[in-house]
C-alpha cells in the first residue's frame, strides 16, 4: 500500500506515522513495570525533501525523544518511520545503512567534540566506521568536508580547544556531513553560540542544504531561528502534536492556545525597533506519566471549557496543510 503512490507526490524524505514512544517506569524489588512515560504519543508528520521541519515546545514536551526515535536511538513503541520510502522497521539500531541517511548535530559543540582527538580524527571516525574511504582518501575527504563548512583544511591537525564556539559547531556539521546523509537533525544548533557567530552558522546551514539537497529536523527554543530556517512547524505539548502547518501560517494565525501562549512568551524586536510585551504561561508541563484527561493542555488553557476536560481533541485540518488539535480552534486570537 505504501510506497507506490507516494513517489508520485512530492518527494517525501521522512514519514513519521502514528509514532509512539513510551518509557516504562519500573518499581519494586522485581522491577515490574508499573507505569509508562508517554514521551511521544501518536505523532504523525511528513517531510518533503529539501525542506526544514521545526519542532517547538517547552522542555519535557517530547521533541527530543521524537527526534531521537527518528534517529534510531530509541526503538518506537508503536508506529513506523520511513526514510526515503524505506521502512526503518525494528532493526534500525543495527542497520548501518539506515544510519548513513540521518545524522545529528548537537547543541553544545564544547561537549560533542572529544577534546583529546584531533579534528581530523573526529571527522574521520564516521568515515572509518562505515568504511567509506581508505588510506590517503580519508584525509582528503576530511579536508574536503572542512572546506565545505568554511574552515581551512590545514587546521585538521588542531584540537577542538583551538577553535571558537562557532568554528566548533562547523566541525560538528562537517562530521555529520561525512556520510552524505539525506537528513540532518539539528538539536538547538545555535543556542550555545553568540548572536554574531550564529549568523554564520545559519548561513552555512542554508548553503549546505541547497548544495546537497538536505532536509533538516530543527529543534530550537529560539523561535526567530525556527522562523528563519523552517518551512513547516510542529508544535508539541506533552508528547502530542497540537499544531502543525507551514511556518508563516503557524506564526501568523496561531490557532492553538498553546501556540499563542508560547509565541507571546518570546521577545521579538520588530523591524521598526519596537518590542512587544511578553507574557508568561502559568503552571508547568504536567507529568507525562499520567497526562491530564481530555485535552492535555486544558489545565493551563485560558479558553478551557467543559468538553476540554473530558474529550481529547483530535488533530484536524483547519485549512489546507494546517492542522490543530483543539475543540475551539476557530476562536479568534485575543
Amino acid at each position, binding site marked *: 500500500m505504501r510506497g507506490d503512490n507516494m513517489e508520485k507526490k512530492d518527494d517525501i524524505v521522512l514519514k513519521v506515522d502514528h509514532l509512539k514512544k513510551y518509557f516504562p517506569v519500573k518499581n519494586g524489588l522485581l522491577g515490574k513495570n508499573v507505569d509508562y512515560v508517554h514521551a511521544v504519543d501518536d505523532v504523525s508528520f511528513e517531510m518533503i525533501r529539501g525542506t526544514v521541519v521545526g519542532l517547538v515546545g*517547552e522542555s519535557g514536551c517530547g521533541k527530543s525523544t521524537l527526534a531521537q526515535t527518528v534517529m534510531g536511538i530509541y526503538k518506537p513503541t508503536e508506529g513506523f518511520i520511513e526514510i526515503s520510502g524505506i521502512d526503518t522497521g525494528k532493526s534500525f539500531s543495527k542497520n548501518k545503512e539506515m544510519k548513513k541517511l540521518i545524522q545529528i548535530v548537537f547543541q553544545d559543540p564544547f561537549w560533542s567534540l572529544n577534546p583529546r582527538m584531533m579534528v581530523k580524527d573526529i571527522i574521520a571516525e564516521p568515515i572509518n566506521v562505515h568504511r567509506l574511504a581508505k588510506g590517503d582518501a580519508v584525509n582528503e575527504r576530511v579536508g574536503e568536508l572542512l572546506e565545505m563548512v568554511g574552515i581551512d583544511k590545514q587546521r585538521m591537525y588542531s584540537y577542538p580547544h583551538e577553535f*571558537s564556539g562557532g568554528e566548533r559547531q562547523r566541525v560538528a556539521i562537517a562530521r555529520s556531513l561525512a556520510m552524505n546523509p539525506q537528513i540532518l537533525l539539528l538539536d538547538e544548533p545555535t543556542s550555545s553560540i553568540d548572536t554574531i557567530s*550564529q*549568523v554564520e552558522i545559519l548561513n552555512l546551514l542554508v548553503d549546505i542544504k541547497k548544495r546537497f539537497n538536505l532536509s533538516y529536523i530543527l529543534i530550537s527554543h529560539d523561535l*526567530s531561528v525556527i522562523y528563519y530556517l523552517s518551512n513547516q512547524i510542529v508544535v508539541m505539548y506533552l508528547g502530542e502534536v497540537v499544531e502543525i502547518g507551514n511556518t508563516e501560517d503557524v506564526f501568523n494565525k496561531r490557532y492553538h492556545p498553546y501556540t499563542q501562549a508560547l509565541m507571546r512568551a518570546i521577545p521579538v524586536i520588530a523591524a521598526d525597533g519596537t518590542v512587544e510585551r511578553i507574557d508568561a504561561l502559568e503552571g*508547568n508541563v504536567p507529568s507525562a506519566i499520567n497526562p491530564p484527561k481530555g485535552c492535555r493542555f486544558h489545565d493551563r488553557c485560558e479558553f478551557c471549557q467543559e468538553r476540554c476536560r473530558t474529550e481529547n481533541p483530535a488533530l484536524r485540518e483547519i485549512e489546507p496543510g494546517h492542522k490543530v488539535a483543539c475543540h475551539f480552534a476557530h476562536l479568534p486570537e485575543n
Partner: protein
Amino acid sequence: MDHGNIVLEIKDLVVRAKTIKGESELLRIDHLVVNRGEILGIVGESGSGKSILALTILGLLPSNVRIVSGQVLFNGVDLAKKSRKQLTGEYLGKQMTMIFQDPMASLNPVFTVKQQLEGVIKANSHGLSRNEVTQKAIGMLNLVKLSDPEMTLRKYPHELSGGMRQRVLIAMALSAGANFLISDEATRSLDVTIQAGILKLMEELASSLGLSVMFITSNIALAATVCYNLGILYSGEVVEIGPVKEILRNPKHSYTRAFLSCLPTPQKKGKVMEAVPGRMPDPLDKPKGCKFHPRCAMCQEICMRDIPHLHGVSEDHRIACHVVAAGE
C-alpha cells in the same frame, strides 16, 4: 537627574588581570548608572566582560584580577576602596545580591528550601522566634509568587522545576533586605514560558519594592522587554548606552548595528544574512584605540590610535565612537 536616586554609579573604572602570559585589561568603563527601581540591561557576547562587571561590583573578583583605578559608588560609598571582608560583612547579600544562570548549582541539594531560606533570614535578622522566621520565609515565597509556599518550603531543590528554583533564589536573595540585584543570565537555562514569568516578577519587584536590577544577558530582545535603559558591552567597554527604544530604533555604534543586523528577523527569511567579519579580541592582545576598529567598516586613523570615550548623541543616548562624534 535627581542625584539621590542613584543606587550604583561606576566612574572611570579600569579592571586588570595578571596572567602567566602577561597583564590584560578586562574592563574599562567610563560611566554607568543604575537608578532606584530601574532595570538596566547589559548586553554583550561571551568574552565582552559582562560577568567580570558583575563580580567587580560585588567585590568577588578572583585574586589575580584587581581594580586599577576608578570608583564603584554604591549609594554614595566607594566599594572599590573597601576590603573583601568589609564588603562581605556589610554589603554582599545584605544590600546587594546576585542570581546566576544555573539555579540548581546555587542551591544545596541536600537541604530543603525551608532550611536554606530560613538560614538566610536567621543570619540577617537576629532575635526572631522560630515561628516568626517561618512566617517571614512564607512571606518571601509569596513575594516571588510561588503558589503554596508551605508546601514549597518542605521540598528539596530537585523536587522543584527550574522556574521555581530561580524564584526560590530570588526570595533568598531578597530576604536579607538587598535592594540591588545582579542577574547574570539568570533565565538562560529556563523555558521561554517560564522565563517570561521570571522577567515579569523582576519588573513587579522593581516597581513595588524599588528594587534595582542589573540585567546581564546576551539576548538583546530579552533585555529590551524588561529594561528601560540598555548598555552594550564590547571587549570590556561600554560602546553604547541609552534608552532601549532609541538604541533599537536608531543604533549609532557600528557594533550595535552589527549585533542587531545579526538577529534573524522574519523579514530576512530565505535571504543570506550579512555576517560580521572577525571576532571579539583576545583580552591579552586587545587592539589599540577603539576595540572594535579591526571589524568596523567606518574605521579611520584616529580609531586605531585613541580610545573613544562616551559622548551624548541625544539627552540620554551616549556612544563611544570617534567617527560619530566627528560627524555630530
